[in-house]
């Protein structure tokens, strides 16, 4: 079967057998109806079991599936009247980022997304969905425009990360990402972000500072790709599956950690099995969240977004003084500030004990 993932093989093998059995039954005129029914039943059961409990590594492979729909697929299926716009007005038009105007149930919105290629040629033109600084600046230009004209912003996140290259560094890759993070924090319009495939590192987050962050059921989101983590931690990139499990990269994990607000269901077997169904699911969720956000004032939207990110992080406040001896470099004395910070210990400890980052 085309586009089969390794863990799907047993099911597909069984399906193949059923097909063969049907052919044999017709050819020889023998009645295998009962056997075929039993086998088909078994196929269904196996599928349900497999897809209802995918491991993080299996979801990672699903998120990277070469037939997985891209931002443009979803943009065209979810919205109407999409008009693509181009360029950062500074240097170039980075095709790794797409965006423009569209309508969601009749409401004008700005849509932006990372764009992977559909084939090798397309992928080369789009740098495999890994933006250069001009891509992030193009996205920022669209967002500033949306802010000016009071349009909600909807972003689709789907990248392995920002492009790692000489030219990207020369033109300020770090600055471009950092600026997006800071500017997205101040826009007085609703921002909804949805991770549709792989959300990799700063390149993903540069479109990810939203009031609501959603993820498709099999999408992943992490600070570094599991392959990268495995090669740094264990000097062995082939242990990516192991790293995927340790790193808490799935939609379920991130919902539990308070990083995302909602999960968008995928059709059985993944988004690539049924684009129309998937688009419908996305549209429903976007609409629900947008309705809620449209009730907020610009100031409330900024406040809401700030609070969402301000909360993230887990730590504890220790009662004991630090081990270091600053006196030998600075003659430090206990201060009013230090005393004041001790007083909110209980709050921080409570934060640490809570299962989520809320």
């Amino acid at each position: 079967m085309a586009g089969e993932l390794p863990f799907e093989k047993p099911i597909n093998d069984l399906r193949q057998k059923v097909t063969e059995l049907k052919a044999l039954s017709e050819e020889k005129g023998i009645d295998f109806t009962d056997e075929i029914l039993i086998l088909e039943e078994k196929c269904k059961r196996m599928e349900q079991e497999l897809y209802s409990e995918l491991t993080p590594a299996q979801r990672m492979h699903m998120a990277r599936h070469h037939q997985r729909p891209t931002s443009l697929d979803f943009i065209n299926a979810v919205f109407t009247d999409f008009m693509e716009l181009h360029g950062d007005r500074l240097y170039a038009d980075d095709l790794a980022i797409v965006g423009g105007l569209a309508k969601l149930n009749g409401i004008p919105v700005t849509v932006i997304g990372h764009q992977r290629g559909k084939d090798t040629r397309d992928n080369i033109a789009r740098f495999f969905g890994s933006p250069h600084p001009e891509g992030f600046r193009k996205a920022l230009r669209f967002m500033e425009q949306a802010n000016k004209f009071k349009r909600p912003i909807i972003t689709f996140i789907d990248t392995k990360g920002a492009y790692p290259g000489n030219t990207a560094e020369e033109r300020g890759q770090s600055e471009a990402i950092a600026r997006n993070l800071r500017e997205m924090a101040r826009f007085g319009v609703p921002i909804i972000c949805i991770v549709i495939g792989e959300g990799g590192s700063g390149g993903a987050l540069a479109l990810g500072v939203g009031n609501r962050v959603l993820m498709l059921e099999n999408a992943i989101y992490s600070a570094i790709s599991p392959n990268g983590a495995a090669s740094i931690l264990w000097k062995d990139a082939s242990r990516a599956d192991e790293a995927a499990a340790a790193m808490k990269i799935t939609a379920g994990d991130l919902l539990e950690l308070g990083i995302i607000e909602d999960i968008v269901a995928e059709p059985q077997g993944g988004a690539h099995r049924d684009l129309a169904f998937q688009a419908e699911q996305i549209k429903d969720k976007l609409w629900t969240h947008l309705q809620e956000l449209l009730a907020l004032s610009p100031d409330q939207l900024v406040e809401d977004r700030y609070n969402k990110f301000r909360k993230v992080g887990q730590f504890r406040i220790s009662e004991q003084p630090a081990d270091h001896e600053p006196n030998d470099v600075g003659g430090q004395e206990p201060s009013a500030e230090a005393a004041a910070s001790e007083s909110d210990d209980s709050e921080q400890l409570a934060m640490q004990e809570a299962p989520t980052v809320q």
Partner: protein
Amino acid sequence: MQIKDLFTKKKYATVPSERPSKRDIPEGLMNKCSKCGNIQYSKELEKNLKVCSSCGHHNMLSAWERIAMTLDDGHLTEYDAGMESVDPLNFPGYAGKLEQQKSKTNLRDGVITGEGMIGGFPVVICVMSFDFFTGSMGSVVGERITRAIEAAHAKQLPLLIFSTSSGARMQESILSLMQMAKTSAALSRFQGAGGLYISIFTDPTMGGVSASFASLGDYILAEPGARVGFAGRVVIEQTIRQKLPDNFQTAEFNLQHGQLDKVVHRKDMKATLTKLLDMHCVREGASHGG
């Protein structure tokens, strides 16, 4: 005697010697420059602010060393000294590694924050330390820096951040990534309200720290030779097999490409900061011209 016996080594008994085998040089007396190989007395190097007298290589400083040479009298009123990392994702080996880093460095995490004076100007300052977990940003680094930004905002003080970091702390994965957004959002408020933020890149500043608060200074300075960038040199070479220039991602490279305001020698840093602070301070009685 046979021919083959000519090739066997004679064995001698060895008697342990009372004398130490090498001349007795106390550990750490001399220092060899990692850039040019020049050997000099460690004391000389210290006096020279850990800058090689031969090639000008700026050696890494720990946070406390940096504070001692930057703040007036080296005096810092530290914020959040008791804040410590936890292991939020139950990441294999993280808890043990944290303990090891703490005992190695006597630090609680990769950044020290607080208040002090520079050239008589009160400032909020954050100084990162590469020796703790390669300065990587987890929840504690992000939270301490965010609180420092908020303190600068509340007290209307200038904010200074000396950065050095390898990037995200992958053992905190997504929580680490979100610290980029958290610190940048805090800067959005602070800078939006007119706050002054001076960012200083020190060697090396990469990844998530470079791609968040460190690149957002109203003024961005760097120490000579400091490597600053998003993706590491090795990653770039392996991913796209590009030949990279020798000075790739150095402070000078970044200056040339318009990514920072000024490369400042360590010995001139305090004076430069003082001058910048002074430019933003309208003293009482100062004439506005006319």
